[in-house]
């Protein structure tokens, strides 16, 4: 059983079968909490041509949703809440908030 399924199953547990005292038996389970669901209207998009790799967005992101790779920075939309801090902090205006189509 994958971790994701495991959590989903626990969601439905009746009180007698819930882990004792609200203990979470697996470490690091917050990874399973997809905060990307919180985004309402806009998502940040990085213009890779303008980006100077200063990493300010990576520092400021409160949800560790800016992912570094060898060549460029990307946004992990699974966890990005769409707060827009990265777009405000970017000194070269490489990040803009774009309306999301639902």
């Amino acid at each position, binding site marked *: 059983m994958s971790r994701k399924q495991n959590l989903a199953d626990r969601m439905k547990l009746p*009180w007698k079968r819930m882990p*004792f005292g609200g*203990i979470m038996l697996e470490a690091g*389970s917050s990874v399973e909490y997809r905060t990307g669901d919180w985004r309402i209207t806009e998502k940040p998009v990085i213009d890779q041509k303008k980006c100077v790799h200063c990493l300010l967005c990576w520092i400021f992101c409160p949800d560790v949703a800016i992912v570094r790779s060898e060549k460029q920075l990307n946004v992990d939309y699974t966890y990005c809440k769409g707060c827009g801090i990265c777009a405000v902090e970017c000194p070269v205006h490489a990040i803009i908030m774009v309306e999301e189509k639902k």
Partner: protein
Amino acid sequence: MTLHIVKKEYIRSETPSLSHVKDSSTRVQNGSVTMKNQEVVGFNGDEAVAYAVKQSDVNVIAAYPITPQTIIVERLSEYVADGDIDSEFVCVESEHSALSACIGASLTGARVFTATASQGLALMHEVLYATSGLRCPIVMAVVNRALSAPINIHNDRSDMMGSRDCGWVQIYAENSQEVYDWIIQAFRISEHQNIQLPIAVNLDGFVISHSMENVYVLPNKDVKKFLPPRKTRYKIDPTHPISFGGLFLQDYYYELKRQQEEALRQTSKILDQVGKEYYKISGREYGSLEVCGMEDADVAILCMGSTAGTVRSVLRKLRADGKKVGLIKLWLYRPFPIDELFSVIENLKALVVMDMALSFGAPFGALCSDVASILQIKKKDLKIFNVIYGLGGRDITPSEIEDIFNDALEIAKTGIVKDYVKFVGVRE
């Protein structure tokens, strides 16, 4: 299901001042238990607490001194400083921090003790709920004292009654001997794997906490055998990381609270089991409640703590006059021993419930509200009235209790209750 009710005889024993000790030794003569190994020590209530904690091999103590609990903290810090016990004594800056430190220690699997009173308990209030919610089996001695304002250091139970819905098991002791016995049993009960809840052992400020009495203490090895080191399935352990105290919203919170309520309700069963085991090593019998003269009583007083001693002595006098009076002493206030109480009040005509705390604006004091609400279920015809007494350390005298008994006998005869709440001992 057979209910365990502890009965005490009302026929006066030979040494009135040591009635509880005498009672224990009569049981010895009956042949079941030997008390030979037990030493008699002069302890006040606070010292009895500290000594019981010393024998219980506690790992961590975090407590902040407050009158009338101070002696407990003083003795325990002496024990630790002298190397008598191998415990970590955490000096904290407030009661809020004391209980918070206790939670952290308890989650690592340690046996933990703390003690407080009055304003200290009020300051702990939010942490009390965290302790029971996190299912930390912490034992706390609460030396009952009035709450401010006006400031007062003497005994009433407004402190614990103000926190009665905090999910803790709440026990009230009558004298130093009971305090000693309950502290030792409390560790066993709270650490039971089906319970895992904190226990507050209440003792009346000054009346018990500062009154020297003879206390029978068990040999260390007996306590060690009765109370093996704490075992817990889940604890904070870097090699097996798990999370405690997460955020639980609409989808989880209710289930966890239901779980907690079930654990609390099971406590009276476990308490009886532990009480039976404790009887085997000590010769002293404990349970949810103790009755005296309830076999044929027409009227009875229901009370908790040190008041029961005064009521019992009045009861003996009235029994000698041929009046059919009884006493119900609650040891266990939370979870409320509903079935046990029903089983002893079957033939009763009038019941007086004595509250040593006000519940402002409520129909009755807190204890009487509980009793009245459960009588509604099974015994609507029982006449009941509430006595508020002893606020801020005001003494309750034997003559006042005699008047209360006589009022109850009058009600039993006429069936008319004039005042549902009586303020006894206040200057009119």
